[in-house]
C-alpha cells in the first residue's frame, strides 16, 4: 500500500531515487527517468507493457537477481535495480 507521507530510496542503474513505500520497481524506473527495462532479442528497448505480470517485458535485475518483474515487485529500502538486460 502506498503512503505518500514517507518514502524509500533505491538505485536505478546507480542513480538514487526516492519512491513512496509500496511503489513498484516500474514506478522507480520512471522516477529515475529510465523508460527501458530490457533489450529485445533484436536489441530494441522495451518497457513495462501489461502492468500485471503477464507479458514479461518488464524484466530487470534486482539486487543481482535477473528476470524479476518490475511491475509486480515492490521497492524496498536500498534495493539496487539494473535495467537494459538482454533477452
Amino acid at each position, binding site marked *: *500500500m*502506498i503512503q505518500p507521507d514517507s518514502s524509500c530510496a533505491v538505485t536505478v542503474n546507480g542513480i538514487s531515487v526516492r519512491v513512496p513505500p509500496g511503489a513498484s520497481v516500474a514506478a522507480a524506473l520512471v*522516477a529515475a527517468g529510465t523508460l527501458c527495462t530490457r533489450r529485445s532479442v533484436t536489441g530494441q528497448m522495451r518497457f513495462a507493457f501489461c502492468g500485471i505480470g503477464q507479458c514479461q517485458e518488464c524484466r530487470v535485475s534486482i539486487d543481482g537477481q535477473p528476470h524479476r518483474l518490475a511491475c509486480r515487485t515492490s521497492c524496498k529500502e536500498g534495493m539496487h535495480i539494473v535495467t537494459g538486460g538482454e533477452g
Partner: protein
Amino acid sequence: MKLHIIGSGPAGLAAAEAGLAAGAQVCLIDDNPAPGGQIWRGGPGAWTDPRARALWEQVKDHPRLTQLQTAQVVGAVAPGSLLLENETGGTLVQFERLIVCSGAREVVLPFPGWTLPGVTGAGGLQALIKGGMAVRGRQVVVAGSGPLLLATAATALAAGARIEAIVEHQGLSRLSRFGFGLALRHPGKLRQAVSLFAALRGIPYLAAGQIVEARGPDALQRVVVRTPRAVREFACDFLAAGFGLSPNTDLGQLLGCAIAGGAIEADQRQRTSVQHVWAAGECTGIGGVDKALIEGRIAALDALGLAPTARELSVRRQCHDFSALLARSFALRPSLKDMCRPETIVCRCEDVTASALGPHGGWREAKLATRVGMGACQGKTCSAACSFLFDWTGPGARMPIMPASAGALSQIE
C-alpha cells in the same frame, strides 16, 4: 472444512468473506504483494471502493484465514495439489476444495510501434499508475476499444496526466446501442459511465477511430490515429492501447476444467466441470466487479454446501446480462486487423513479425518455424493476437503456466 482460493481480487475476497462467515478455514493465495486484484490494485491503503474496505475488514485479521501473498501458482501437479513459487522457492499445496479467481488478461493487438517504451496496455497503464508510477504533467493518449479506455483515462487524469485524446474503435451507432442497453437494464452502470464522461469532459473523444502507428525513435513520442474524417497526430509520453479483456483460464485448463467461449465454464453455483473446483470472477467471463463479487460469494457458499438466496441468484443473472451486452457491444471488428502491417512485430518476446507468421497454416506450425510464443510470456500476449489476425487456435496451457525456477520445479516428485 477448508477452502483454498486463488486470487484476492473482488471475487477472491468475496469468496473468502463468505467462507469465513460460514465457519470455514480459508487459505487465500495471490501473486501480488497486496490484495485487491487488478481493479482494487495498490493495496488497502489506496482503495476508494467502500466494498473493498468492507470485505477486507471482515477478512484481514480473521483467525481462520491464512494468506499467501507474492505466491505465484506455477501449475497443478496432481489431483488436489498445486505448485506455488515465492521468493524463497517452491511449495506444494494440497487442497480439498479450490476456488479459482484468476481474473483476466488484456487483449492487445499489434500495430506499428507498439513495442516502443511508453506504449502500454490500457489496463496496463492503469495498473502501473496504481503501482505508484508518476504521470503528473505527462501527455497520454488512450486508444483501442471498450469501457476500460474511460476508466484508464480517468485514473491517469486523477494522477495529474494530460489526456490528449481518447480513441474508441467502435462507431457512434454501436456505442449508442450500448448506452441504450445500459439505460434499459443496468441504470447503475449507466450512472457510472455518465460520471466517468463528466470527469473527462473537455478531452477529445474520437469514436470510430483507429491507431495507425506509434512513433519513436527509441521511446514513444507521437501517435498517429485515423478517424472517418481525418488522420491526426498527437504528441505523447504514454499511449495506453487496449482492446478488451480475455479470461485467464491457464490454471483452469491445467486443472482439467472445461473451457467454453474462452472462459472457464461454470454453472449457476460456480461449479466447474471438475469436482471440488469452483471458478468465479473474470476467469468465467468478462463482466466487471459486480459479477466478480456475487460469483465469489456463491462459489464459497456452494463449496461449503450452502445454497445462495434467490436474490443472490438474481443479482448473478443481472451481472451475466451485462456481461453479454458488453461482449456484443465491444466485439472486435475485423477492421482492427488493418493496424498490423507486414513488418509489425507480433511476438514481442521473440521479435517475430507478421510477415514471418503469415505463410504458416497454424499456431503450432508457426511456432516450430519462427519461435512465436516461445519466449518468456509463453504466448500469453501474442497467441490472442494471432487468433484474431490469422484465425489460429491458440496453445493450450501447460506446466509451468508462469516462468519458474528449476528449484521450484524440483518440488515435483
